[in-house]
């Protein structure tokens, strides 16, 4: 007898991810097994870099907004130091929530239960009737702080691991896609302050992450809206499209629509408008970027899924928040660009039409997610097929695996990274 857990017992307590994730197929239990979800929290959500919010949501000192890392309730604050801080919404005394409002401005949080107060950076400021603790300043306690917080162009990410890859290493090539979005602002500035729609979804979070750069589904799931509006989006995701799907590494992927927009060579086609409708914006872009403005205005915004939860869909940003193995929340907002007032109101209006619980696109995606989750409860066949386009993939000039517009190249990239994270021993 030894005290080591035998291999057989370990096998029943933890799924064998190498056996469940193959290059051309993944096992259905990855979407339905609560043990997998528990592992994902520890190995992905509470370890890897996760998108939390944008600095523009807390512009002033003292501003705060409640955010999440998976099921964890996180407060994003702007300290007096001007930096953005992330603290857990949990009093160090008895574990009560210290903040109930969704947003506001306060330099301190006061727990309503026994009146303990904390600076918005987490530091314990005081506790009433302090003689019960032998006087002031005697407690070595604080709000829980997120160990690593970093941002890229205002996008704030968190890692609950003390060490690991840096944010720059995690983002890798995906950082260039955020750059592309920022370049659409004549000031190089992105603002995500238009408020978030919150859409509750009965599905595993991975169904959403995979769908974001799945170029195979739009012609089917969205045919109803494409047909009534005469939208030019459909052909971007057809057999004849010159757009490509790219595995950007680290689980990130994109639908690169630039080949199609370059082929047409029309500025602002990507936004479904023309220069005459937004003349001030176009003038400011040419002033800011000179000759480079033409390419920027032709190529448009990125369509990129940044592992595990940030999806930039041209003019919208989505955040995927997992709550349990079969429940998540989609948060969505319109991109707002500094110095682009003419675009901004249109982006809000288009986004309201497209996304959220009543959105003419996203309600139907969500219907697919929920039916998909139900379907995955069926016993046969056990696997999901992800081989589409494997035979016609190639490496591009930068070494990234690239497939056709409707290929599952991005989905395979997701699973490659997922498997790497899930197989790491804790």
């Amino acid at each position, binding site marked *: 007898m030894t005290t080591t857990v035998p291999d057989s017992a370990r096998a029943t307590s933890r799924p064998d991810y190498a056996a469940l994730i193959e290059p051309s197929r993944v096992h259905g239990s990855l979407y339905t097994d609560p043990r997998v979800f528990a592992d994902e929290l520890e190995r992905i959500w509470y370890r890897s870099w996760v998108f939390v919010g944008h600095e523009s949501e807390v512009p002033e000192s003292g501003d705060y907004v409640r955010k999440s890392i998976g099921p964890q309730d996180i407060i994003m604050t702007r300290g007096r130091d001007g930096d953005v801080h992330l603290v857990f919404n949990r009093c160090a005394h008895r574990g009560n929530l210290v903040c109930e409002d969704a947003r506001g401005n306060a330099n301190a949080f006061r727990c309503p239960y026994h009146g303990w107060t904390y600076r918005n950076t987490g530091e314990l400021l005081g506790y009433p009737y302090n003689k019960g603790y032998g006087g002031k300043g005697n407690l070595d306690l604080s709000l829980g702080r997120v160990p690593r917080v970093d941002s890229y162009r205002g996008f704030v990410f968190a890692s609950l691991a003390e060490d690991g890859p840096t944010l720059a290493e995690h983002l890798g090539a995906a950082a260039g896609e955020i750059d592309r979005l920022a370049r659409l602002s004549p000031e190089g500035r992105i603002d995500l302050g238009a408020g978030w729609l919150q859409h509750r979804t009965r599905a595993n979070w991975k169904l959403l992450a995979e769908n974001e750069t799945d170029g195979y589904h739009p012609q089917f799931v969205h045919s109803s*809206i494409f047909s*009534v509006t005469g939208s030019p989006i459909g052909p971007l995701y057809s057999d004849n499209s010159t757009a490509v799907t790219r595995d950007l590494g680290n689980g990130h992927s994109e639908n690169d629509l630039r080949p199609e927009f370059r082929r047409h060579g029309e500025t602002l086609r990507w936004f479904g408008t023309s220069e005459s409708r937004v003349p001030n914006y176009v003038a400011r872009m040419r002033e800011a970027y000179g000759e480079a403005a033409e390419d920027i205005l032709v190529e448009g915004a990125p369509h990129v899924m940044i592992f595990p939860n940030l999806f930039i869909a041209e003019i919208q940003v989505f955040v995927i928040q997992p709550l349990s193995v079969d429940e998540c929340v989609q948060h969505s*907002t319109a991109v707002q660009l500094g110095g682009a007032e003419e675009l901004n109101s249109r982006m809000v*209006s288009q986004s309201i039409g497209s996304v959220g*619980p009543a959105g003419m696109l996203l309600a*139907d995606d969500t219907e697919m997610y929920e039916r998909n989750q139900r379907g995955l409860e069926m016993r046969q066949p056990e696997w999901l097929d992800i081989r589409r386009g494997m035979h016609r993939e190639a490496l591009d000039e930068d070494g990234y695996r690239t497939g056709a517009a409707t290929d599952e190249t991005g989905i395979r990239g997701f699973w490659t990274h997922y498997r790497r994270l899930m197989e790491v021993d804790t």
Partner: protein
Amino acid sequence: MTAVTDSPLTLRQVEEFLYREARYADEHDYDAWEALWTDDALYWVPAGDATSDPATSMSIIHDNRNRISTRLNQLRTGKRYSQSPPSNLRRILSNIEILGVAGGDTEVGANFVLVESTSRGMETWAGRTTYRLRVVDGEVRLAYKKVLLVNRDQPIRTMAFLI
């Protein structure tokens, strides 16, 4: 806004109109529902803060007359999967009050509770609706409908039917 007594509509006329509008929405009678709207219509379901500006902040729905048509045309294709098959709906309107008259439109407030049944379960929706009604060629028409869900600041389920 002028006094309630200046309304060209009686409370009974208002009630009859609201019940009819509710029935068309419950029964997915898209043609009849669409015909109720004026050309300058606004159909608005705010999200989060009810006082936020819909031009600069996200709403759940913010449809002008054109977008109402687009929304209904999408439903009419039968391939709006989030409403195909359509939800089974029934709503109760109550607390109906004429709030005043503005620019010839009668402003009305009402509370509602709506039960939705789909293959994945039952959902309860509730809130406060503000309507602006206008008499056009002797017919009562709907110029404005603003629906404040009680849970608009929380994550909500898909709402692809007519609220």
